[in-house]
């Protein structure tokens, strides 16, 4: 039983609301990423779940046990969770085996069993030959794996990962991402993964919770988050969405609607509850824009600059009639366009961001 339920949790530091009415339900065995820029409250939330800090409002339950409420605070020692710290927090005065064995010793596991479990944990992260090394003698990726083994050897009901890849080289990250994914598949442990890197979150998580300024903006599967952002902040943050004003003329029963974008008629996706309105906003992706002939229907834009990104260009343009409206798209190599060249852009898809629920 390792559901994690976070209900209306708030945390204040003086007058600053580090967490503002956050609620998330994490199913047993689920892999949830908490995504946000630094200072968004994701680390505060992790420390709440771990029990390092007390909350100011709300309730956190692990399994059926309320671990944090206003009245009661179960200390971290008693929560049966595991954490992989950003700094790994390996104890430098202990060997790899001693680091991994520590939690078992604390739990009173005696030696043949303890030794066996340490070996199994090290085998799981493919560090069999490293038991007697000191952390200082390991590479970054190996330290990461020791931290993982140490965290999992006690079979915690819930594992928290605090930006575990932030300190690794880019080429190591991909390998470790695979490792986490396999790991989660093999152990079936509930995992909460804190990160500021959306590619990492998308690659790993069953669901992603997007946070900003202490508030939870949206919890959804990666694809839903990308295709159907719940608000303009999520739309702009995830996949660099372009948020543009549209008129919604008509709403159809199949979850689409007819819109007008700078005079260009586009059929977009929307929620079934979407109403016709002239003040809606839509989220477009770079891939939703296509360069068409000058006489085809579309939005007329002018190129500001073309940035070469290896194999393709990223074109940054503005709408000719509305210089403040910026559009970007990719164009394959070879491509030559002088700045200020006019382009006709056809919009093939889009998502009408649902109006905020008044309350």
């Amino acid at each position, binding site marked *: 039983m390792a559901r994690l339920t976070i209900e209306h949790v708030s945390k204040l530091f003086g007058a600053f609301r580090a967490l503002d009415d956050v609620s998330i339900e994490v199913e047993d065995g689920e892999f949830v990423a908490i995504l946000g820029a630094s200072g968004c409250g994701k680390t505060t939330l992790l420390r709440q779940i*771990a029990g*390092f800090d007390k909350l100011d409002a709300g309730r956190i339950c692990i399994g059926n*046990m309320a671990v944090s409420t206003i009245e*009661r*605070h*179960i*200390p*971290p*020692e*008693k*929560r*049966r*969770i*595991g*954490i992989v*710290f*950003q*700094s790994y*927090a*390996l*104890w*430098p*005065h202990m060997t790899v085996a001693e680091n991994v064995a*520590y*939690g078992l010793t*604390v*739990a009173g596991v005696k030696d043949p069993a303890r030794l066996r479990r340490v070996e199994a944990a090290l085998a799981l992260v493919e560090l069999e030959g490293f038991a007697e090394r000191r952390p200082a003698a390991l590479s970054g990726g190996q330290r990461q794996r020791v931290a993982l083994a*140490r965290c999992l050897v*006690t079979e915690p009901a819930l594992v928290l990962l605090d930006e575990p890849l932030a300190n690794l080289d880019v080429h190591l990250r991909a390998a470790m991402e695979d490792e986490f994914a396999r790991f989660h598949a093999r152990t079936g442990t509930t995992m909460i993964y804190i990160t500021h890197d959306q590619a990492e979150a998308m690659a790993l998580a069953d669901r992603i919770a997007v946070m900003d300024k202490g508030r939870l903006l949206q919890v959804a599967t990666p694809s839903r988050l990308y295709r159907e952002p719940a608000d303009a902040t999520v739309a702009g943050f995830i996949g660099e969405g372009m948020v543009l004003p549209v008129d919604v003329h008509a709403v159809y029963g199949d979850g689409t609607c007819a819109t007008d974008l700078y005079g260009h008629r586009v059929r977009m996706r929307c929620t079934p509850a979407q109403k016709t309105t002239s003040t809606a906003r839509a989220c477009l992706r770079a891939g939703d824009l296509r360069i068409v002939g000058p006489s085809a229907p579309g939005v007329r834009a002018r190129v500001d600059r073309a940035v070469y990104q290896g194999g393709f260009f990223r074109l940054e343009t503005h709408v000719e009639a509305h210089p403040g409206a910026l559009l970007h798209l990719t164009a394959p190599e070879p491509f030559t366009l002088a700045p200020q060249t006019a382009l006709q852009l056809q919009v093939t898809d889009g998502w009408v961001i649902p109006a905020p629920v008044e309350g």
Partner: protein
Amino acid sequence: MTEAGGGRERVEDLALLWGLVGVVAILSVLPLARLLLEGIAPNGQFSTAAFTRVLASPSTWTATRHSLVTAVGGTIVAVTIGAVVATLVALTDIRARSAFVFCFVLPLMIAPQVVALAWLQLFGPSSTLLKMIGLAPAMGSPNPLYSAEGIIALLGVQYAPLVFLTLRAGLRTLPQELVEAGLAAGASPFTILRTIVAPLMTPPLVAGIALCFVSCLGNFGIPAFLGIPGNYLVLPTLIYQRLAGLGPSVLSEVAVLSMVIGAIAVLGIYVQDLMLKRRDFRITSASNPMRPFELARWRLPVEIALWTLTIVVLMLPLVALLLTSLVPALGVPLTANTATLANYDYVLFEHAGAKRAFVNSFGLSATAAVVIVLIAVPLAYFLVWRRSRLLRVLNLTAEMPYALPGVVLAIAAILVFLKPLPLLGISLYNTVWIILFCYIARFLVLGLRPVLSGYYQLDRTLEEAAQITGALLLRRLRTIILPLVAPVAMAGALLIFLTAFNELTVSALLWSSGAETLGVIVFSFQQGGDSTYAAALAMLTVAVTIALMVSTLFIRGKLAQGVLPWRG
């Protein structure tokens, strides 16, 4: 089940925290409160009789005046030397900096009474060294050091390193950019020193001055060796004489006297506090060290001047002390024929008091060091990672017995322990235990500061990682934190050991037969005219001190800058 489970951590946490609060309260609040009580209400009844009697006595005011004169004079000498040397060492490109710092700071680690003894052997008609080179004054002429000027000079020499350390720590934090901006504006190094460095260094300089003043004020060894023979009494020596001459019957009076000196010290500390704003400059680490000024053709002359100073201040007196320890009797010239190790033989193997003193001083210093580390490691845990108002007060409280002059604590301890302990019926007075109590109380902060700096360098997630596996506080302290702060704790323990090993102020007031310390024995040898024995014993303590200081140069692991003053 969860309620009970959640309870155990809290019980362990609270028990440890309140245990530490209790320990610190007993070590510092209890004695000082008892002292205040004695001043206001001796024997439990409100009375100003003792106060009036002491304040009406002319000897009180003479001693106070002497104390102020020597403390201010000593501070001026120390600040002059310390500031010049700190500026040269911190800001210029002199060579062999570490070796110089080690030698320059050494007098601070050598007991004041040994420094006094060494200088006495350097001057005066019976100086073995002066005799060897035929410069000794005529027999019967007074030793020029037996004077206020002598006390001032030696206090200055003893505490110049204190000013040096405070100021150098400040100079280390001086941002390089500020100096470079001045250079870019076309200012010469001297203009920069005057207009940029000096104003910025005002807080550490004032802090150093205050620290130096309080140390001079509380010093017992130097005025005891140089002042008592000429009847030039300062407050600590006046207290000592009263208590040694008349015994505990004058406790109320010496309590008032120690409150007078305490009041002067508090004033000094208050000024320091005001300037420091609770910052300890000795353990701040430099973020961006300054590139030293090039002395160019002045480098060699400056280096020669600095080393000459060190040789005059440190080497010459120690050589004089060594020579005196090798002659059979004071006044006998040292030649190949007269040189003898008999003095060493006597103090090491024959004199019962000296033999006991070795055991006592080693035991007291080692015990105090171990006990203080055991208090400091958990105490620093709470101070650094569980901040609260209670803990801030606790930190200040722990500093008091060290900040106040040693005689204040000693008198306070006598008041607390003169009568048998309640319930137990055992009296600690006239035993080594009262000295141990004072050492622990007084030197707690010497162990606490390095350990605090160790915690500040520690990544807290190391502890949280252990917490998350279910390890309770005591286990985390033992298996995770203690090993990680071990290098700084070791450094702190050594600092405590060295300081306690060379201590005299407290033990001069608290010793009893069987509970002598090395400082007390050196003092009584000298007072009884046995300068050669005193010199031999003093040389032995210097040897132990230097050996231990050198050994710390090999401590592995990262120590924050300034944890051990002599480690450059």
